């Protein structure tokens, strides 16, 4: 035991893949959480809203990261689960008067079930074929939401308008700020649970499947079970993000949840670093802020500028933000050794 413990506590050089491949160290985590807690105190309301959206997308990117980085399955259909989560929360709040916070676990559960069921037929597909099947799901979803048959619940093409929650207990803060802290707490809970999951027996089983299905099966891992579970968990977390997104934007409409959203989440995962959970927030910040930055360079060619930035990132940082984190970690270690 002791020998293993020693090695576990040992900090890893950058050359080998660190033990903390899924999470940040204690110091780094404290710094990030403090920054996230303090940032809204100096920001304007609109910036707070944008930061809330970053956190919400970070949850959705994290969900995709569990699926792709964890179990090795691709999905271009995350927008569909996001939409189901958003609509579930919206319908529960507006038609049934359920408290906004209570709608989240329900949306998560509904999406878990959808993801799990979708995962069953998806078992027969892998790689690019699975990506295409999920792509179909993403393209179908806005049309399904517009269906006349569900219009009574979904509001059809018009969508649904949601009232933004006030801060409880008469706390002296704006709605935007309250929502930011609410989302921050939810996202931290989800982050910690996800790190736990990936470091656990179930997470190891998923990663084993990602690396070698036949060998995993020979070790007693039920490949079908863990693949569908990964789909379920990923969809469930995306559903919670969708619910939060609906509350933050105060509006759900079919065309907010097109394939473009799914691709944005995929992009966020790649920029953040596939399989590195803390990168999710970097990826989310990228998909929220970089399009705006691109627009400031040139209104007419914002898409092209965005493309150039993206290509640069892929060339310079093929492993996403994870690469920066490792480099910084390496510097800190070198400085520490010298000092």
């Amino acid at each position, binding site marked *: 035991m002791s020998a293993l413990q020693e*090695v*576990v506590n040992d900090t890893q050089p950058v050359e080998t893949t660190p033990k903390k491949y899924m999470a940040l160290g204690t110091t780094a985590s404290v710094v990030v959480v403090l920054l996230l807690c303090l940032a809204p105190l100096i920001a304007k309301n609109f910036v707070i809203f944008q930061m809330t959206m970053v956190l919400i997308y970070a949850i959705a990117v994290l969900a995709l990261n569990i699926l792709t980085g964890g179990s090795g399955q691709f999905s271009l259909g995350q927008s569909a689960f996001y939409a189901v989560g958003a609509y579930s929360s919206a319908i529960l709040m507006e038609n049934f008067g359920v408290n906004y916070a209570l709608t989240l676990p329900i949306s998560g559960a509904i999406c878990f079930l959808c993801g799990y069921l979708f995962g069953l037929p998806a078992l027969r597909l892998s790689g690019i074929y699975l990506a295409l099947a999920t792509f179909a799901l993403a393209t179908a979803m806005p049309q399904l939401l517009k269906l006349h048959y569900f219009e009574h619940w979904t509001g059809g093409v018009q969508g649904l308008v949601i009232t933004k929650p006030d801060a409880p207990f008469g706390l002296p803060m704006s709605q935007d700020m309250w929502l930011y802290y609410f989302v921050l707490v939810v996202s931290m809970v989800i982050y910690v649970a996800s790190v736990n*999951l990936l470091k*656990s027996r179930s997470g190891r089983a998923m990663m*084993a499947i990602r690396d070698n299905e036949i*060998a*995993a099966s020979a070790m*007693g891992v039920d490949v079908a079970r863990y693949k569908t579970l990964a789909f379920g968990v990923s969809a469930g977390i995306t559903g919670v993000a969708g619910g939060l997104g609906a509350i933050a934007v105060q509006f759900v409409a079919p065309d907010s949840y097109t394939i473009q959203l799914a691709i944005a989440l995929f992009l966020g995962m790649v920029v953040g670093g596939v399989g590195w959970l803390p990168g999710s927030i970097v990826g989310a910040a990228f998909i929220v802020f970089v399009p705006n930055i691109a627009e400031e360079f040139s209104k007419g060619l914002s898409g092209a500028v965005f493309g150039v930035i993206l290509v640069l990132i892929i060339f310079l940082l093929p492993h996403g933000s994870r690469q920066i984190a490792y480099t910084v970690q390496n510097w800190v270690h070198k400085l520490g050794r010298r000092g």
Partner: protein
Amino acid sequence: MTQAQVSSSASPLLAVRDVSVVFGGIVALNGISFNMQKGQILGLIGPNGAGKTTLFNCLSRLYQPSKGDILLEGESILTRPPHRIAEIGIGRTFQNVALFPNMSVVDNVRVGAHCRTNSDIVSDSLRMPWIRSSEKALNKKVDDILGYLELRNVAHTTVSGLPFGTQKRVELARALAAEPKILLLDEPAGGLNHEEVYILGDLVRRIRDDRGITVLLVEHHMGMVMSTADYVVALNFGRKLAEGTPTQVQNDPDVIKAYLGSKDEQ
């Protein structure tokens, strides 16, 4: 044939009974029968295409025999799906090493113990007390195995960066973590140099002696089989040619003919 009768007198750990495998019109295995006693190291030999790998894949449940049965401690394994073979005590390694390349050595070995542990995703995400204690016990067990196979110094290295010989030991460690009764080794000497082959042979004997694990060795390398195995079964063209002690099989005229060709063919 007297050897076969002698070896089947005690109740065997593993019994292969009249197993045949047919792919389309090709008979890959034709009525193979043999027994494995507890604590034995059984070498399965044969030239290319003899059916060794096919038989191996039947034992690890990747292929379904068209005829016959395979019994572990008297119970058929053929009704079980491949992922439920580890739990009854059949462990294996792969021909060209099939580790989880992006995971560390410890994590590879931990996955090996998957069938000996229990959890669900909710308790895992919440890191419930029982999860903590079972992970602690698992870490102890994994550390013991890593120490046994002298892998502690690479415990946290990603597997893909390790030399081939070390990867083979990691694969053995992973198989041992499942606490197998019988260990199936698929051409373990492949890709190793002369010296490494004999070190591996010693290791296999040591594992048998220390842990009482029965070993089925499917191997091309005659030298390793003859120096490691207690009992040898020789196959050719899907049929059993001979079985017996290494010396008996080595001197069997049919086996010599299969490996070297007969005079008329030359």
